[in-house]
């Protein structure tokens, strides 16, 4: 359908990598069939497609993390057989994966030199050099991270910046970013875009995977689209537009994403009064109404996640009170919250949401086993299975079967499993913490439709997102948080990006704060 003739005018040697007719199968899944991807030197090449389209698999083949079944890879003019990640590193391919792959228990500095620590004598490590080099690299990228810190003590966004810094330090000819901005703040994303521009000017080829199409059009030169493991097209970005990309990816048009009916009713379901946790957040104060979607916006690190974790009973708070349908809800454990009717889709699916080595079926039923057991003891296998099947279908989770291990699903599909797990429990209050991270456009639309459906049946929603258009688009009201303080509550018809950003960055403390106090 789409000719890339114009695009192929360049000489062979213009390409840093050419992947031709790549195929790859996993048990029961044909992840890729005859996929092509060619990237020029000094080009930022976007790779887009729905969840499970095969993007991550394609780049893992390029880095040697997986072995291709068929196809050829030409790198820098020579055909190569990428047999393992070590090989790809040596020829100059570096990737920042969707799931951060750092040694969590080692320091930032050590992570820069994994496997090849500089030595000061044949038996001793040159720690000075380790930390000073790491420090220089981090400083050159304007990152304020102490190289002595253990990686696991850094927030995820910082961990990712470390992974990026490390990849850059390793001097590559081809850099791959798999959904890098999913975990970053706007500022950090801007930093990353600057870094990418610099790499590009140095003639390095870049593969950039993202579900955020505005990024694709902002700084990518060309885009390759995959659908269901098949190659669809490659085009220069200037010759296409968002609508066309979406219809190529999803196979249909997506209309106004955020348009849906709101079902806000006056009854108060949850009231949070003066909730305070020392040094983390102070004076959080709001009501949640039946069927309402209450957005919560703040920059990453503003304390939003801690606030909802406190409401959910997963972390302690020092002061304040929470009541549920007018009765004090003294929730001290997630279990109690779940029994009351709370559901939480946590921020980090891999460490908080999913039992990765277990099956899709078990994960979806995780909150329910007591309920779906005879006498609470013997699991009703039929209900277990039908539960799993219905959510796999309702959320269109792409999985070979309900018995597939969750670890093997694509990132976006893992996220959908977490959502299914919470919904299966039919909560009265759903808390979504960044639910659309790493989710493709089509599925995002489905999640918004789901919000409509939930609120229609009287479920109330707290919706955290760092993506401003999304918060504004879905929320009835928006609580804005800055550095742990509630800066105001804004009504949907007064919400503008500018106004919210001002509050969120702490520049302006709105009269809305007083208004919220009066609630």
């Amino acid at each position, binding site marked *: 359908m789409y000719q890339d003739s114009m695009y192929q005018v360049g000489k062979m040697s213009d390409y840093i990598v050419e992947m031709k007719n790549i195929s790859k199968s996993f*048990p*029961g*899944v*044909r992840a890729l069939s005859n996929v092509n991807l060619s990237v020029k030197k000094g080009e930022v090449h976007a790779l887009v497609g*729905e969840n*499970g389209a095969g993007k991550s698999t394609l780049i893992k083949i390029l880095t040697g993390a997986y072995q291709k079944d068929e196809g050829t890879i030409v790198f820098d003019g020579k055909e190569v057989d990428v047999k393992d990640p070590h090989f790809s590193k040596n020829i100059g391919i570096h990737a920042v994966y969707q799931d951060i792959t750092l040694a969590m228990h080692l320091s930032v500095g050590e992570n820069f030199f994994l496997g090849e620590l500089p030595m000061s004598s044949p038996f001793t490590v040159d720690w000075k050099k380790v930390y000073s080099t790491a420090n220089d690299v981090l400083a050159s990228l304007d990152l304020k991270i102490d190289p002595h810190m253990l990686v696991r003590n850094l927030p995820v966004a910082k961990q990712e910046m470390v992974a990026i810094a490390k990849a850059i330090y390793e001097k590559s000819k081809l850099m791959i970013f798999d959904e890098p901005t999913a975990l970053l703040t706007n500022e950090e994303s801007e930093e990353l875009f600057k870094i990418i521009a610099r790499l590009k000017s140095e003639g390095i080829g870049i593969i950039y995977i993202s579900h955020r199409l505005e990024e694709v059009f902002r700084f990518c030169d060309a885009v390759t689209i995959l659908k*269901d493991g098949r190659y669809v097209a490659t085009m220069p970005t200037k010759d296409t537009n968002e609508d066309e990309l979406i219809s190529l990816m*999803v*196979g249909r048009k997506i209309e106004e994403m955020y348009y849906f009916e709101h079902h806000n009713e006056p009854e108060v379901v949850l009231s949070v009064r003066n909730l305070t946790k020392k040094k983390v957040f102070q004076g959080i104060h709001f009501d949640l109404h039946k069927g309402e979607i209450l957005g919560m916006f703040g920059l990453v690190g503003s304390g939003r996640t801690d606030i909802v974790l406190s409401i*959910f009973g*997963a972390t302690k708070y020092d002061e304040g009170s929470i009541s549920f349908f007018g009765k004090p809800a003294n929730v001290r*454990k*997630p*279990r109690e*919250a*779940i*029994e009351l009717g709370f559901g*939480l889709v*946590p921020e980090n699916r891999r*460490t*908080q*949401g*999913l*039992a*990765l*080595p*277990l099956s899709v079926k*078990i994960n979806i*039923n*995780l*909150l329910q*086993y*007591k309920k779906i*057991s005879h006498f*609470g*003891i*013997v*699991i009703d*296998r039929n209900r277990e299975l039908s539960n799993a099947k219905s959510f796999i*279908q309702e959320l*269109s989770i*792409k*999985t*070979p*079967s*309900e*018995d*597939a291990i969750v670890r093997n699903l694509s990132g976006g599909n893992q996220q959908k499993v977490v959502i299914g*797990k919470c919904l299966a429990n039919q909560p009265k209050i759903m808390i979504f913490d960044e639910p659309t991270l790493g989710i493709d456009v*089509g*599925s995002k639309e*489905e999640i918004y439709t789901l919000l409509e459906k939930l609120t229609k049946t009287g479920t109330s929603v707290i919706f955290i997102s760092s993506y401003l258009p999304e918060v504004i688009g879905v929320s009835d009201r928006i609580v804005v948080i800055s550095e742990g303080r509630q800066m105001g509550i804004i009504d949907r018809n007064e919400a503008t990006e500018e106004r919210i950003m001002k509050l969120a960055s702490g520049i302006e403390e709105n009269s809305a704060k007083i208004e919220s106090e009066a609630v």
Partner: protein
Amino acid sequence: MKAHQPVEQDSKEKKRFKLKTEGTLVLLLLVLAVFLTIFTRGFLTGNNLSNLVRQTAINGIVALGMTFVVISGGIDLSVGSVVGFAGILVALLMKSGVPIGLAVLASISISFLLGVANGFMVFDGRIPPFIATLGSMSIIRGAIMLISRARMIAGLPKPFLDFAQTTYLGLPALFVVWLVLILFTIFLTKKTPFGRNVYTIGSNLEVARLSGINIRFTTYMIYGLSGLMAGIAGILMTSRLANGIPTGGQGYEMDAIASCVIGGASLSGAEGTILGTVLGAVIIATLRNGGNLLGIDPFILQIVNGVIIVAAVYIDQYRKAHQK
């Protein structure tokens, strides 16, 4: 969005793969049995087999409890001591005139509580399972020596001693007990919320917590179950040996862990099945029995045992890495 074409083969393929893990073990066992039948005179005799089955049953019961601990990502080094403790306690109680039934019940209950105490240390004390149970292994063994003055306890009631020798439907009673417990633990792992929770805790504690799983209760039950099984094994051991023996059960923890691991359980949690553990236990016992019959130096046998453990895990890892 359109439904993605599901590929049906996968679940079948997975079942076939699972069969492979346990199938390999069955195969190994068959080879072993055929070899021993051909090369020894004594292996395929009723006497030897019933002896083999009795010994396997005792170690096998301990391994059943251990399986839960291992799946939950922990380890229980105290089971050998609990076996010894229950064995001595039941003997002492009966000697002091407590009716058999009551003595057995009391010993089992106390073994369960010893396990729960391990669970308490692990959950409430946040002591790593290895350390917590290393401690209780030593504490309990010390207690055995104290209460028995390190002496054998003989002269136990006849009906109690007879139990180890009786048969039901031609099967040794010990074996029947093991069978019942196998069915019970398979039921627990496969059919109950408790079983699911054990796997979930083994895959990620934080996920389990945020999913509202009662981790404290589940941890108590996991270690309690391990203690319970060890207690039952200890009582059976005393019946079989006709004496309460202070050093009884020493080293049983290693056999139990080895059974789990040979059976495909992973010490990092969330993997393992009862059936695998049972096969693991049978393989270890057959090897030991066969070695004796062949007149192999027991020290060499110990070496072979170690090699089998390492080899079994290596094969399992290799297969996992190369599954297609």
